[in-house]
């Protein structure tokens, strides 16, 4: 707890210090090049959605960067443009680390080029200081979707274990984490994302615990899994039948399943349902439109447009009441997988500390 606060305070202090330097540097640069170093537009003073829409309409467009395929976001974008005519959405799929770096550099230069940014998992902590302060409640964002003040929770990405139904008979599918350690999966049968993020839940669920997690990781490492650099690659190995079982993301499983791929969620739980947040960057070019889009995506209408591509919010922990309407929840509940989501900013620091230890336990640490 204290560690996190210290990190954040330190970050804020250095941020202030660097802002002073940044301003000085900017002044020199502006003087040098004599350019019109235009100031970003001020934060809108709108206090409710109607005022916000008016301001947003004057801005005319909103630029949104997130690490999701455009096709998945298209229904939500169309719904937004239909509800708020006069504001066009320009969407760009950006890799998460690129996104946070670009925003960082753009803010340093005082030229932010987008209005809605995304943070999730590892990019949450670095994004904290980049978000503009917004009273989301004023824009009708439900309180349980507002995170750390300025972030808005819009979708979750539950991590799961998935198996290839052609390669693994139902009788031998692992029923729990320990089932994964069966010698049956020895020698490249398990495809495992090597950065350790699939282990998140061990740092979350008190019943599991990080020590037990590291022990588990060490035992898993002894099975010589087929490692991949990220979960997407692990997913392709499972769905193409290269490896029978491995780490996956539920939306990838559901997408490929819908296309007829022989892949299913394994009943290995509990797991972490990673939350993704939207925020409006400080200094964005269309601050009102950015707020409006974010608020819309968090609203039930926005969620209804997102849920079709398996991107939606889910309850913070296991709750199967919406299993019939939300296919992500449905799949988790059908497989009997319990989940936990992040509820506190401190957890992200715990994860950041835990992952390198997992990597070491697995033997996949590069540095």
């Amino acid at each position, binding site marked *: 707890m204290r560690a996190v606060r210290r990190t954040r305070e330190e970050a804020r202090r250095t941020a202030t210090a660097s802002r002073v330097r940044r301003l000085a540097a900017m002044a020199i640069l502006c003087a040098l090049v004599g350019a019109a170093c235009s100031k970003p537009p001020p934060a809108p003073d709108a206090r409710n959605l109607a005022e916000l829409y008016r301001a947003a309409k004057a801005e005319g467009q909103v630029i949104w960067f997130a690490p999701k*395929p455009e096709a998945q976001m298209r229904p939500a974008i169309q719904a937004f443009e239909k509800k708020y005519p006069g504001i066009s959405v320009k*969407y*760009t799929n950006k890799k998460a680390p690129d996104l946070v770096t670009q925003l960082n*550099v753009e803010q340093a230069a005082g030229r932010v080029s*987008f209005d809605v940014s995304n943070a999730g998992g590892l990019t949450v902590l670095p994004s904290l200081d980049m978000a503009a302060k917004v009273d989301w409640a004023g824009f009708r964002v439900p309180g349980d979707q507002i995170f750390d003040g300025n972030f808005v929770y819009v979708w979750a990405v539950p991590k799961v274990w998935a198996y290839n139904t052609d390669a693994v008979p139902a009788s031998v599918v692992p029923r729990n984490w320990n089932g994964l350690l069966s010698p049956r999966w020895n020698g490249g049968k398990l495809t495992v994302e090597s*950065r350790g993020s699939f282990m998140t839940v061990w740092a979350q669920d008190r019943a599991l615990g990080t020590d037990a997690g590291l022990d588990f990781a060490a035992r898993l490492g002894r099975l010589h899994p087929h490692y991949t650099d990220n979960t997407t690659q692990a997913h392709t190995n499972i*769905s193409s039948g290269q490896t029978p079982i491995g780490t996956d993301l539920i939306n990838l499983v559901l997408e*490929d399943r819908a296309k*007829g791929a022989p892949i299913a969620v394994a009943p290995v739980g509990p797991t972490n349902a990673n939350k993704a947040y939207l925020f409006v960057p400080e200094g964005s070019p269309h601050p009102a439109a950015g707020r409006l889009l974010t608020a819309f995506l968090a609203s039930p209408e926005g969620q209804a447009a997102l849920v079709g591509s398996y991107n939606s919010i889910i309850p913070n922990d296991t709750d199967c009441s919406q299993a019939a309407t939300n296919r992500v929840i449905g799949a988790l509940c059908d497989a009997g997988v319990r989940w936990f989501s992040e509820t506190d900013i401190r957890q992200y620091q715990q994860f950041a500390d835990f992952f390198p230890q997992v990597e070491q336990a697995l033997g996949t640490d590069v*540095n």
Partner: protein
Amino acid sequence: MQSGTRVATAAPPSPPDADRPHRRDRVRTGVNIAIGVLLAYLVLFPLGMLIYSSLKDSELKLPFQIPGFTLGNFTKIFSSPRVLEVALNSLIFVTGTVVVALVISVGLAYLFERTDLPGRRFLAPSTLAPMAVPATVMAVAWVLAANPANGPLAILIRRVSGLSVDIYSLPGMILVAGIFGVPSMYLMLAPTFARLNLEFEEAAATSGAGWLTRTRKVVLPLTLPGMSAAAMLLAVIALEEFAIPSILGTPDQIFVFSSLVQAALQPPSGLSDYGRASAYGVLLVLLSLVMIAVYRRQTRESHRFRVVGGKGYRSSPVRLGRWRYPVMTIVLLYVLVAIVIPILTLVWTSLTPYLQPISLDSLSGLSFANYGAIFANPSLTHAIVNTLVISLVTATLTAGLGLWLALASARGGRAGRALFDLSFLVFAVPSVVLGVAVLFLYLFLPIPVYGTIWIIVIALTTRYVPRASRMIQTSLLQLDGGLEEVGRVSGARRGTVLRRVVLPLAAPAVTRTWLWVFANALGELPIALLLSSSDNRTVVVLLWDMIGESANYPEASALAVLLLALSAGSVWWVNRRGFQQHM
């Protein structure tokens, strides 16, 4: 800029007897200075940025947000417990890749350019086809085709020879990366072989030396500059290339240099550690300095490589005789394994609903749905136009600057050579670091390119100029200085000589370089991705959109097939324009 001035004065000197230099000479001097300054700017900025960042402990921040300098990044690198393992793996991987690519491309260049191998006119361009497919997509195609579990190629080899091949191994990585490097290398080597005066080989043959001896003692030594330049380029590419080690090396935890760079860019802290990544970049730069020194030593007496004489030389090919058909079988086998199978896998994937290896059982599931999906994408037309503009402009700009730089290195005195060598240093800057440097620069400079396709053009040009100038320089090295002297003696002005003698002779190399840059710019991913915004998206960015977070390889493959068609089309077009004939 001093270097620019010196290049210029060395390149077109004013006639000594004339009191007032001609207006045209003054203009030319001005143009030379401008190009020199532009190149120095393109090259020095990212280099400076690299060195600056490497001295900053920027684990959670941007390099310029941190006061003071430190060697911490370097000490961390060298105190890593894996440093020896990674160094050894990298050495094996890079050496192996270069050897595989060199052996294959020297073989192909020799066979296609100097022998009467049947079908060479058709086979030669086809080896270049895979150039525009991004490495990530190609690596996945390889995995699908040759993975030990259900890859048809691996299964076939196991059935035929009983050997089980594992693509997830150092040899597997070397083989795939080597094959991946062949098109670029072939493109560099082919002119070297094509222009080698046949008389040198004939003189050895009539002196009684057999094929092996004369190839070893005459042909290969004379093509040495071309081969070492190509090897140098590939060595750096192999060190920097990430997709293949990531996809083929990670499963068995085979880490190489680029794994370290990638780990620095995606650390657990979430924010890319550019300080550490830059420190790796600086190590690459140091390594390339060593290579430059070796290369300079090898080609110091450049007269030794002037193998394109002033006389009309006939290119009557070396007769393969009874080896004709056995050799052709081997070449066809190579084309099958290295080109047809991955491309076929790519096409297959583009027709499937979800990623799966080629098999007869899934034939019924094939459809053009993915093509329908990509063509229905409203961004596609815009992306294709962007891609074409970026690739065409980058290729033209890069070939032009590369030619200028190569000329400056050959005839521009010390300053020209310095600029030329300097440019090679940028070559070693990892592409993401280069992208961030460009991103940073144009955010601050009042040049309105940020967020447009031009920033991508600038970044890609910076990235490809070093390679392009190497490619052209090797071919200039082959030209006999006498050719130019004759032109001068016959009274032509320097500019005229350049236009009438040097340029036509360098034209094939420039054309090939253009083609190479064009194809590579089509498929370049990291920079295009980093600098992308809603208005400057290219086809690869759309492609990544499909695989980045959703693993939609079938649709991505459909786009890759589109890129492949674009690059095959350009190879065909350049070929039709007859660049092979007049070499």
